């Protein structure tokens, strides 16, 4: 992302190079139940962050607090330089929320709805950030160009979801929230959606925070992954870094003289070197597989949801900041 001119910072109301999201000791309590027990994290401009965690870990609560839809119990939160509890309409215009829609605006026509919702952003258009995105352009971007005249209620589940995404980005947001965006997508729609997310992040410099249950998706999209378990962030890092930190062990498979072998080790390189240098029949079909994000995730959630004595987190070295 290129740095904006200094004058623009003042005009846009927040420091474009500072963190887009800043969370310090965020706590949430419903009645006597602590759902969030002190979250700390930062999101920088242009980053794509995935929030992972089992159901009930507090993902939705966290996102809703950041969106300004839910009041927190304690802690400091700043989104686009503003406390979401006091965000005004201009602040609202700078972010997009992709909702898990259900059946709203069912009688409206797709193009008309998108155009109507886009008009809300017109007063916040600036030369550097023209708003809203043209309806035709946007429909083409999400692959609904031929559906403009159709009623929203007649769209299929996947088409409907893409319309949700289009509505989320119609105001060309700086920050985009995506809550399980590809639930119910077929593989092709999923692939197209991933391309769209990459384009938003790379071309428009949009900062994106998304939740998903699809670990492959998280690995593919995210610059950084936050794992939320039992109300705490138990891991914060790239998919690679997380995999290295946790499961640690690498699996090596090979074939020699028609026989399959499997070996697990902490350090694959010397083992493979030795293996290939051994005299005897040649090694074929060599396969080195590091722990996947899924292994990492399962391991982290297991450690935190069970077997943490006294509810005190045992930080993973170098993973929790």
């Amino acid at each position, binding site marked *: 992302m290129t740095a904006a001119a200094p004058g623009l910072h003042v005009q846009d109301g927040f420091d474009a190079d500072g963190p887009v999201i800043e969370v310090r000791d965020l706590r949430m309590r419903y009645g006597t139940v602590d759902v969030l027990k002190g979250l700390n994290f930062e999101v920088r401009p242009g980053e794509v962050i995935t929030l992972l965690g089992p159901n009930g870990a507090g993902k939705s609560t966290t996102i809703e607090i950041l969106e300004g*839809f839910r009041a927190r119990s304690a802690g400091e939160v700043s989104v686009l330089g503003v406390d979401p509890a006091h965000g005004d309409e201009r602040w609202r215009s700078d972010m997009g*929320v992709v909702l898990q829609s259900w059946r709203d605006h069912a009688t409206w026509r797709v193009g008309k709805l998108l155009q109507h919702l886009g008009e809300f952003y017109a007063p916040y258009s600036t030369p550097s950030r023209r708003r809203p995105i043209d309806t035709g352009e946007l429909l083409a971007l999400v692959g609904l160009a031929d559906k403009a005249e159709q009623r929203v209620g007649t769209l299929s589940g996947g088409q409907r979801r893409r319309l949700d995404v289009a509505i989320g980005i119609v105001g060309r947001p700086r920050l985009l929230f995506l809550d399980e965006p590809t639930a119910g997508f077929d593989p092709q729609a999923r692939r197209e959606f991933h391309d769209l997310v990459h384009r938003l992040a790379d071309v428009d410099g949009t900062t994106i925070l998304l939740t998903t249950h699809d670990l492959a998706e998280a690995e593919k999209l995210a610059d950084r992954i936050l794992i939320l378990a039992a109300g705490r962030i138990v891991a914060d890092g790239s998919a690679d870094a997380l995999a290295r930190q946790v499961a640690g062990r690498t699996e090596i498979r090979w074939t020699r003289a028609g026989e399959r072998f499997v070996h697990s080790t902490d350090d694959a390189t010397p083992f493979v070197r030795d293996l290939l240098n051994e005299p005897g029949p040649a090694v074929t079909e060599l396969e080195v597989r590091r722990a996947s994000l899924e292994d990492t995730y399962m391991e982290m959630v297991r450690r935190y949801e069970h077997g943490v004595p006294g509810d005190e987190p045992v930080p993973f070295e170098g993973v929790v900041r």
Partner: protein
Amino acid sequence: MNLLPFRLGLRRGLTAFITTTTTREGMVQLVIFNAVPLAVLILNRDEPLPGVGVALSASMLPGMLTLITAFGVQVIAYYLSSEREDGTLLRVKAMPNGMFAYVVGLATVSSLDALVSVLLVFVPAILFIVPGVPIATAGFWLGLLGFLLLGLLACLPLGLLIGSVVRNPRTIGGVGFVGTMGLAFLSGLFFPAQALWGWVQVVVQVLPLYWLGHGMRWVFLPTEAAALEIGGVWRIWEAVGVLGLWAGVALVLGPVLLRRMARRESGSAVESRRQHVLQRT
């Protein structure tokens, strides 16, 4: 002042009205809903009302128009409640100035609903069916317009109040319909209210419906028809006062309740209601 959110609300209401009425269900509803009162008028076209010198149909027309306006309460409450359930409210909440435009849109679509229905009954009625409506006087048109507007002002905020409190749109559809019809019955829209018990008369005179009906009858009927009213006189200033009071109270309370309701709106709230509905069906 920035008028854009207001304009967006008006356009939103207009689009919502057109998209709803151009669906098959919307069309059927509009036709049936207005065919019933027209049929009743036709059946009682020339039947004289004993003692007053107007046709029975002429005495019914103001009550029908009142009832149509009063259904605005139910319409707007239903819209609000069901659009909270289906996520529309959350969608607009995520837009800058969305909630304001949304409420303006709701008022617009509900007013259009009521006004189009009023026209669909009123125009054929005065042209072909009901004799003796004083359409040649300016006072009639001024009075009609005034009471329609005042009626909507009193009814729509009341509907917003109900819609923001009652969670289930199906309750509003069912109980709302029966309740409005019952109240219309007790408020003398179908026959003079003094035929009912005294305490009922006291209660309905606190509510806006009786007074809207009273005002409408005053607009449509000759002076001597006052004999059929409670007390035997026209009480126009009281009617304007009570309706104005209801409009005022609801306009003050409405935004407070709406804000409270909107504050609680979030993705998980919509999702839990969705689960609830899916279990029910």
